[in-house]
Each structure stands twice: as C-alpha cells, then as structure tokens.
C-alpha cells in the first residue's frame, strides 16, 4: 500500500513536471493564460501524457502478469507475439493506404492483436501447457515480424515504407484526446481481466500440479490472461505503435519491493509502468536534438542494456 502511494505520488509529480517540459517550457502560472499556452497544455501535452500513462500502465501490468504466468523473469508482452501481430495489423492498414480513414489503423491493430491471440490459443490448444504456449508465442512473433518486413518490402512508394518504419518505432507525438478515448476503455478492461488472475498467479509459483490442486483452472486462467493481454497490448499498439521493454523492466524492478509475490506485483507494476513511460516521453521531448527521438527507440535503447544486465546476473546465479 505504501509502495502504491509512493508510486502514485511520483507519477503525479512526473505528470506535473511533464506539463512544464517541452521544446517550450511553460510555467504553471501561464498554463491557462493566453490562447497558445493553454492550447499547448490542454490539446497537446495533457492528452499525450495521459496516453503515455495509460500505455505504460497497461504494458507494465501485462509484463507482471506474463512473468507470473510463465514463471520467467525475462518474459515481455512481445514474447507472445501479440504486439508483433498488432503492429502487423496496423502496418497493413498503412500499406493499403487506408490509414487516413478515421479509426482504420487502430481497428486494424486491434484486429491484429485479436487474431494473434486466437492463433496462439489454437496453436497451444486447450491444455494450458506452458512450453507449448511459449513456443507458440515465439513462432507467432517471428511470423508477424517476417510478414511486417514483407509489407515494408512491398510498399508501393518510398513514402509508404518511410511511414511504416516511422510508425513501427512507436511514439506519442501529436496524439489527441481521441486517442486517449480509444485507449482508455481497452486498457482499463484489459487490466481488469488481468487483475482477476492475480491470486492464481501466486499459486502457480508452486508449479502447475500444486496450483491445480489449489483450485487453479489452468485453461480458464489462460483465457483470462490472453484476453487481458490482447486488450492491453493491442490497445497500446493501436495508439502508440510498438513500445518494448516496459513489461520486462518494470516488474523486475518492482518485484523485490513486494516480497516477490506475483499478485502483489500487479498494481505497482501498472503504476511504475505509467511512471516510466511518462518520464521517458518527457526526456524525449526535452532532448536537444534536431528531430525528436521516437519513444519506442528510446525505450529500446534503455531496455536492451537492461535485458543484457539481467541475463548476465542470471548467468552468475546459475554458475
């Protein structure tokens, strides 16, 4: 509880600071003074920050739930191939030039996530088998990556390729309240479903057999998890493109603070995920470079070394 409150406090602070920061710094006194600053605050920065918090919360909790389910601290929503499938859906809409049509891209991204989830369930069967599930996810994510590359390859014009590649990098630039309204119900519903799995994830830390004897319905748990992940990850890809590593880093950092309990990890991971994305997006905005660094790229630059560090740490522990 105290951890949740501190994280919430930090998030509120980060959001306030984030309202100030940008190419033009706007002091709090000027937020609602004059047309231009108030426009920047209410129509540019605030929706962007809200979206960052939503995406971060959804990805953070997705990571916590996935790591708990797979009992693997290296799991990330990308592993299931769900974000790759969502990206493929979005990219396909750009390829066919319909991305200008309102809602076409998000609908395609969600459809991609949904299709990915359904394929995953078909491949892994109803057994709820862990290994089968992971392998199906790995297969699916490489398939989606291959098809995405094919779409880029076949893009009709260099402009289309460039648009796809830019979009794939993931960003919160120029997002509006409409995007927030799109992501909000998806993320909230997804997180609600994931929260239902929390106590079952605790039982799973004693292994499949023990968990089943403790009343966990493996197939039902898998259904909840897959649906919750699709909504959170699909929703975030629909509005922000692919932003990786949030689901990997956040639960790992929070875990020791909650006594390593998978159920206790869920809400703090959502809060810390929101915090991470809001702060990273603020850094991206104030970085003194000519063209803005894409948030997805920034996250990967932070995330990849973190992943490496984690691997080295695990290798030491095994040795």
């Amino acid at each position, binding site marked *: 509880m105290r951890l949740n409150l501190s994280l919430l406090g930090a998030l509120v602070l980060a959001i306030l600071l984030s309202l100030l920061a940008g190419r033009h710094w706007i002091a709090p006194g000027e937020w609602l003074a004059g047309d231009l600053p108030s426009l920047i605050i209410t129509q540019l920065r605030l929706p962007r920050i809200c979206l960052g918090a939503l995406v971060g919360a959804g990805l953070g909790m997705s990571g916590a739930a996935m790591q708990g389910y797979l009992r693997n601290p290296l799991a990330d929503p990308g592993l299931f191939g769900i974000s790759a499938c969502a990206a493929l859906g979005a990219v396909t809409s750009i390829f066919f030039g319909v991305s200008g049509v309102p809602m076409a891209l998000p609908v395609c991204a969600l459809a991609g996530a949904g299709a990915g989830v359904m394929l995953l369930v078909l491949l892994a069967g109803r057994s709820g088998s862990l290994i089968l599930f992971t392998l199906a996810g790995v297969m699916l994510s490489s398939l989606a990556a291959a098809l995405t590359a094919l779409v880029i390859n076949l893009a009709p014009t260099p402009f289309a390729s460039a648009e796809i590649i830019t979009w794939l990098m993931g960003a919160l630039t120029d997002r509006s309240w409409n995007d927030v309204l799109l992501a909000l119900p998806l993320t909230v519903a997804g997180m609600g479903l994931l929260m239902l799995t929390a106590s079952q994830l605790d039982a799973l830390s004693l292994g499949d057999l*023990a968990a089943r*004897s403790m009343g966990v319905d493996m197939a039902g748990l898998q259904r909840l998890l897959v649906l919750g992940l699709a909504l959170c990850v699909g929703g975030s890809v629909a509005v922000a493109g692919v932003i990786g590593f949030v689901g990997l880093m956040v639960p790992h950092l929070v875990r020791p603070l909650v006594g390593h309990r998978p159920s206790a990890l869920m809400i703090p991971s959502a809060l810390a995920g929101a915090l991470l994305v809001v702060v990273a997006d603020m850094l991206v905005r104030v970085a003194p470079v000519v063209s803005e660094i894409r948030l997805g790229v920034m996250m990967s630059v932070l995330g990849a070394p973190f992943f490496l560090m984690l691997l080295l740490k695990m290798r030491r522990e095994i040795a």
Partner: protein
Amino acid sequence: MMAAALAFSDLTVRKGGRAIVCGISGHLKRGAVTAILGPNGAGKSSLLHILAGVEQPRSGTVLLGGAPLGTLSAQERARRIGFLPQKGEVHWNLAVKSLVGLGRMGHSAGRSLSQEDEAAVVAALAATDVTHLSDRSALSLSGGELARVLLARVLAGAPEWLLADEPLGSLDPAHQLAVLKRLAMTARAGAGVVVVLHDINHAARIADHVVLMKDGAMLADGAAQDVLTPDLLEAAFSVRFRLVNDGGRRLFVAE
C-alpha cells in the same frame, strides 16, 4: 464414516497409448494413513493425481464423501484435499511465511489472510519444525528445509485429506521420521492421509492401510499387516524380502 470416505472405482489412465492405471477400485477411510507402495512405473503417482483432482482419468469415478469429485467447485476441492507433489517447485523468491500462507488460498479466496489463517500458518510452521525459517527466502533453503516448508504449506490448509507423493525424498533420517510422525498425527486428528512411499519400512512404521500396485493394477489392498508380507512384496517388487522381528517392530530386509 461412509460419508467421509474417498472412494474410487474402475479408474483407468492411458498415456501415449500405454495403460498407466488399469481399472482399479478402492475405498480409503479418514482417520487412517494409507500408504501406496509399488515399483517404479506402477502408477502410484497417477493414482494420487487422480485422487487429488489434478489429473482426469480416462474412465472411472472418484467419490469424495459420496459426491463425484468433478462436481465440487475447484475451491471446495482445494479446501478439502491437500496435495503435496513429488517435485517441490518454487519459482519466486517468496518468504517462507508467505509461501506457507498460500496453503490458505482455499479458505481466503484471494483476500488477504485473516487472523485464523495467520494462526494456521504459524501452527503449520511449528508442526514441520521450520518456524525458525519463517523470514528466510524460499530459494535460499536446502532441499530438506524446502521439503518441510512445502509440507507446511499443505498442512496450513487443514485439509480433510492429505495426499503426499514421496514426501521423504530429500530428507535426512531424523527429518524423515519427524515427517512420518507428523503424517500419522494428522491422521489421528481425523484427516485421511494417503502417501506414496518407496521404503517398505517407512510404510510399516505408519501405515494402517496399504495399497500395493504393480503395472497399473492393484496387487493387494488391505490392512498393513495383511499386505506387508514377504510373498506379496516379492510379487510386487520382484525381490525376496526377509521379515525380521526387531523387538516387536517388523522390519523388511531385501535379500
């Protein structure tokens, strides 16, 4: 007493086209220790898994107090039947106390633990002699310590039935005897204890009832002194056992 029994009939399990358990029936009573004995691959674990409700038989039924096991809610089943798997897995670095607290899941249904739950956890930690490890993290324990902590997890749930699959595997002799004694005491307190054992003398020490299995079939099923005989044991294990009387205690020595 009938209502409290765990009965199974015509259980069959097939895996990879091979019959693991073929058409066995039996009737287990509460307030007693039942040992399941048999050579490797006899189907002992499969039988225990089915009784615990974690595996479904291809055919046959299990009745808990007269009601088919499948008709109970998962939570009620979890509350009434505690199962200790053979392989003790722990995946996160949980504190021993919160690991044992997981044993109360069937009672607390995901809510935080009540005072009654906490008391049950403390009692279970004491019963398996691991109170001093309460604040240690599970991944830092030795094999024997972990085995006792995992037993405490099941005991904390105070189940009507305690099903344990080779619970003595990684224990030293002193803790083996302590765990056997704990199992016997759990049965005296009214629970049904069903335990898969490898050591015939361990079974002779605590079992009231013995189920002897071989190749998925039940070779014998009855009171311990009737089943634990050199002839039946030889039929099961293909080894001749000599019965030694050690001051009133029956000991079996393989020849």
